[in-house]
């Protein structure tokens, strides 16, 4: 074969990163996150304190968990709009069981998690079996879950079970006065688990295959139907888990919790470099997508001078600036790369 073929052999990680657009964009995302943090540090006092960054994890733990589940769904070529509602339903159900019916949280949590997974699996089954569009099925799921939450309780239910309060107030000290909450630790574990699941298991790789080409996945003999249902079940499970973490965060169950969370989760996943069309993305990217969203909010709070409407405009503007820089950097570096794969 001719010389270009020889050039296509990648000797090391760096050159592979350079050529593989997916890993490259992940690196760029991380780089931009760091740059944005430094900019914040220059502009605002106390911005670079470790606790500020730990707060990103503490305050976004539930979003992170939901986004990990969402990453699988989006990589498989689908979408799950029900996540925010499932979070809300889980908080209400958990609070209702604990407060109204006197269950021990440790008994209620497994039930909540199982219900979340089952609900996801149900939506997955509808999508798979009846060829319905994920967008509308999960939209109906969103109505249903939030509706069910309001049916259980219209009002916010505070949780004061000793166990729950203890977990909520648990802070894992990391030295220097900085600490991490239990929810954040769970979220990090979910990220790690998600990364392993996506990268190292048959299920995970099946998800990528389906997202790349469902027809091919079928012809390759992959269990497409089971994987698809599994993806939505996983997302439902993650949402329920996020609901549980949410109750540790808020000590309450409320049907209006986590409104609009689905969009935040989708945005985080996409900012993290996952293609909405499916087939490509990293769980680690999602972690940074969530952190970027959190950082934008933190920047705005630290500024503290913006009116309500300028807040919205600033969020949009920062989001745009981030995505544009990401896009431009990825593009230009790909142009500089030795051989562009045919588009």
């Amino acid at each position, binding site marked *: 074969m001719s010389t270009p073929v020889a050039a296509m052999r990648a000797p090391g990680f760096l050159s592979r990163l350079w050529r593989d657009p997916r890993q490259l964009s992940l690196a760029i995302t991380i780089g931009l996150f760091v740059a944005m943090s430094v900019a914040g540090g220059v502009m605002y006092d106390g911005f670079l304190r470790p606790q500020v960054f730990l707060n990103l994890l503490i305050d976004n733990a539930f979003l992170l968990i939901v986004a990990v589940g969402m990453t699988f769904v989006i990589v498989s070529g689908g979408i799950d709009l029900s996540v925010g509602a499932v979070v809300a339903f889980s908080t209400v159900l958990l609070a209702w069981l604990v407060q109204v019916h006197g269950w021990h949280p440790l008994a209620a949590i497994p039930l909540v998690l199982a219900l979340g997974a089952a609900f996801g699996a149900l939506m997955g089954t509808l999508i798979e079996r009846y060829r319905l569009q994920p967008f509308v099925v999960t939209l*109906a799921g969103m109505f249903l879950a939030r509706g069910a939450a309001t049916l259980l309780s219209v009002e916010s239910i505070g949780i004061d079970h000793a166990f729950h309060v203890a977990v909520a107030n648990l802070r894992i000290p990391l030295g220097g006065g900085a600490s991490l909450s239990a929810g954040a630790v769970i979220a990090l574990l979910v990220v790690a688990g998600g990364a392993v699941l996506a990268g190292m298991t048959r299920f995970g790789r099946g998800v990528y295959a389906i997202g790349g080409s469902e027809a091919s996945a079928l012809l390759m003999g992959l269990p497409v139907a089971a994987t698809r249902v599994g993806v939505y079940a996983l997302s439902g499970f993650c949402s329920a888990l996020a609901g549980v973490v949410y109750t540790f965060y808020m000590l309450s169950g409320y049907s209006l919790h986590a409104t609009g969370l689905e969009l935040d989760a989708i945005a985080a996943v996409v900012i993290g470099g996952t293609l909405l069309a499916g087939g490509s993305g990293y769980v680690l990217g999602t972690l940074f997508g969530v952190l970027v969203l959190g950082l934008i909010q933190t920047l705005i709070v630290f500024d503290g001078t913006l009116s309500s409407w300028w807040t919205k405009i600033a*969020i949009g503007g920062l989001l745009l600036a981030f995505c544009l820089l990401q896009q431009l950097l990825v593009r230009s570096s790909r142009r500089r790369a030795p051989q562009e794969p045919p588009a």
Partner: protein
Amino acid sequence: MSGAEARTSSRQVLHRGLAHPLFWPLLALALLLLGNGLFNPGFLSLQWRDGHLYGNLVDIANRAAPLVLVSLGMTLVIAVRGLDISVGAVLAIAATVAAWTIARMQAAGSEGLAPLFAAITAALGVALLCGFWNGLLVVKLGLQPIIATLVLMVAGRGIAQLVSDGQILTIYYEPFAFLGNGFLFGLPFSLFVVAAVFVGLKLLLDRSALGLFVRAIGHNPVAAHVAGVRAKAITWSLYVFCGFTAGLAGLLVSSNVASADANNAGQLLELDAILAVALGGTALAGGRFSLAGSLVGALIIQALTTTIYAIGVPPQVNLVVKALLVTAVLLLQSPEFRGRLRARLSRRAGGAT
């Protein structure tokens, strides 16, 4: 013999009707309305009152008008593999700009119809600009549609509130009220707006080659590009058009309640619009689309809402009812579901005999 012939031909007609993509959405709509009529006999009645038609059906059509408009724009954007989740914000911007313009013109002492035309021009102009912006981000800068339009969705309401200074702008100007509240030949004027846009669009897509190009781009953008279709320009203009429909909807909404609420106008409109598009049989992955389907889809959604109000369920049950009805409509439309249902029914019937 002629009887048999008539029977076969009528069966053929039936078959063709069943195969028509609009059949199932229409059936869903009809069932909804009929169900309402059974529960509540007054529901389907129409009266002539004060020189115009009055009744729930008129309300449904009238209320659905903004959603229909936005769904039409959304249909085309989705047909070329795009998505526009900023429509609600664009609607709010257009509504606010219209109210603001009128207030300004009035303050400057302008009278007659001048404020009306100024408001329409300004609102639609801004809406077109919003669409242009979305197209720029998607087509030129290559952002994923959902993120590109998320920017305007988030920032758009901020911009609208900036214009209105956070107030709900009330419009004290009669001519403007005609757009969303007036009646022409006894029917709400907004229906004529919707009809004009729908018919115009349909003619444009069917009579020119645009429809072919849109479908080609949606099915395979690369192949369309290679074939010489100006895929990017077309995609871009469809985003502009989607912005335009959202602006038009903004005019109708603000005119209807004679005020512009930057924060709440068009809240969650994007979800309803996408739902309408999907209910109408358009593939969300692009390519296959149906304008008439989206129109019916939007009517289904509004009929659902009105149904919920009419049957008087407690508000906390609204969402559950809506979820169940939407799921039922979806299943009804799924050929796989009908196939399985038929198989099960015939098995049971077979077992019985």
